[in-house]
């Protein structure tokens, strides 16, 4: 299992009120699978994804990535793990506005240790892969929403991670662009064997993944495998 969670919980305290965002979630995801998480707003999808990605500390429970209990790691080690093993995609434009497309793609390398190989060449190849070889020197404000998502995909792949975590990556895109981005995800999953965990509201997109996990009130209430 590349991802495993054990009784994962997250509670927030707002004043006197205690909100249980995620309640005892146990999941196991095999390497190379494309998993989607669906559910209503506030069902705990994004919180679960951020705990798996090492972005928010669970109140209880464990997250294992490749057998490593990530919440036992120091900040430095956990950041290194995010840098090397996980690529993130968000539901908004997550590019740095002052850097152009290729610089955004190369950015994660700046935080890694022992960078090897020609980073610039790899960034160019990735931009070619996502169909943006001709826009590599454009800053985010000169790119469309779909193009920005594709740059973010290239950035997520720069360190050749095993896992891509995507939080409603097509949320604000039109149908056609959403389809293009999804096709790209499926291609990367199929051709490079990357494990995908994607939070989405769109049941049509979820059907195109290997497994769908349905969440409600912080718990996984159903697991559907697609053919």
């Amino acid at each position: 299992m590349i991802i495993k969670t054990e009784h994962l919980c997250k509670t927030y305290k707002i004043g006197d009120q205690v909100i249980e965002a995620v309640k005892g979630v146990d999941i196991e995801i095999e390497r190379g699978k494309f998993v989607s998480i669906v559910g209503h707003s506030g069902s705990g999808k994004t919180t679960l994804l951020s705990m798996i990605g090492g972005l928010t500390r669970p109140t209880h429970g464990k997250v294992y990535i490749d057998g490593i209990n990530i919440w036992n790691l120091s900040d430095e080690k956990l950041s290194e793990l995010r840098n090397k093993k996980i690529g993130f995609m968000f539901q908004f434009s997550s590019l740095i506005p002052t850097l152009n497309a290729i610089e955004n793609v190369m950015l994660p390398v700046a935080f890694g240790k022992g960078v090897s190989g020609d980073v610039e060449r790899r960034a160019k190849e990735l931009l070619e892969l996502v169909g943006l070889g001709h826009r590599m020197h454009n800053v985010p404000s000169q790119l469309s929403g779909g193009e920005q998502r594709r740059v973010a995909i290239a950035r997520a792949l720069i360190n050749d991670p095993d896992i891509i975590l995507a939080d409603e990556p097509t949320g604000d895109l039109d149908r056609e662009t959403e389809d293009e981005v999804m096709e790209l995800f499926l291609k990367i999953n199929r051709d490079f064997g990357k494990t995908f965990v994607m939070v989405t509201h769109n049941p049509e997109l979820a059907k195109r993944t290997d497994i769908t996990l349905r969440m409600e009130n912080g718990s996984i209430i159903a697991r559907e495998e697609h053919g």
Partner: protein
Amino acid sequence: MGKINLFYLARRNLKRKWFRSLALILAVTIASGALFASVLMMESVGRGAEISTSMLGADVMVVPVGYEAQARASLLAGEPNKFYMSRSVEDEVKNVPGVAQTSVQVFAETAAFPCCGFTKSFLIGFDPETDFTVMKWVGESLNRPFGKDDAVLGYSLAALPGFKTYVHGHELTVWGKLRQSGIKYFDNSLFVPIETLYDIAEESKKGGEVAPLEIERGQISVVLVKAEEGVSPDVLEVRIEGRVPGVIAIPMPRVLHTVRAQMATLFGSLTILVAVLWVANTLMVGAIFTTIVSERRKELGILRAIGANRRHVFRLILAEAAFLTALGGLLGIAAGGALFYAYKGIVTSSFSALKIPYIWPTAAQVAAISVFTLISALAMGIIGALYPAYTSAKLDPYNAIRTGE
């Protein structure tokens, strides 16, 4: 394309709100310029006083009672004051226990008429036999011993060795020139043997169209004293004043101390102003970077998501602040230096009017003050941005991304 690293990212980030960055740079420029200029001025004044007293080579200067201020003005500002006492004072001073060596000088001023080659110059008679002040600073000179009708010229007086000049009609040969010191007492003076000065004074009284030199043979202005090893100038002061009536002994360290006290009064408010500017700018950096961190929460969260650890984020914020303030510091040094250089003449004459010696600092001093100013500017940025950098490093990545959306 250059390598993407934290410093590159920091530099690029500063461009996004260019007016805010520019305003901060200008504020730091003003503070750094003020710091640079005031430290430069203080150092120059301090150096002037130090050189004046050290070049003289004396531990104590003995002058007639009531002429302490004039003696100081003569030494520090090269003012040709006239005050006299009997040369017999030198013998009395010599007998004071603790005195190792003495030499006398008599002060006068050349007339403002063509009878004198160098008009309105400080004319100083010295005793070549006992001198330990003048001859050691001679740069170029004629290749023969110093004679009775020879003169030594300060660096600023325009004549070369061998040149003939006149003082109240008395012909003198320029025997040597002093090296440049920046001290008016040395640079602007005409030094002649004391006996020759007495002759000139007597000749000037035989008639003529210009006012004669009011010096009688056997009169002197100062006795310069070197103390025996282990005897402090302050002890010598007490001994001389106790044994020689009608004189006042001025220890040289006190001359320096007086100048420093004058400097403290003069620069006191300037120092406070610079300190206030520094603190205000540091607080401003803190306020601006708190806003920057708040504006960029989402972005900082994304940086954490793609692999930046807390130290990376901390260093990124500090680097941005340091870039801005270092740039302001460099501009401040350039602006302060340019203004200072442009008003060099005014600055020098203002200090001269205050009877405070002023010497343009050496390249090494300017370099050291520049480094100090740059470090101060960097410290302004780093200290100011310390708290925002700390809070940004402590941000929970998920919260930062969600609340920054």
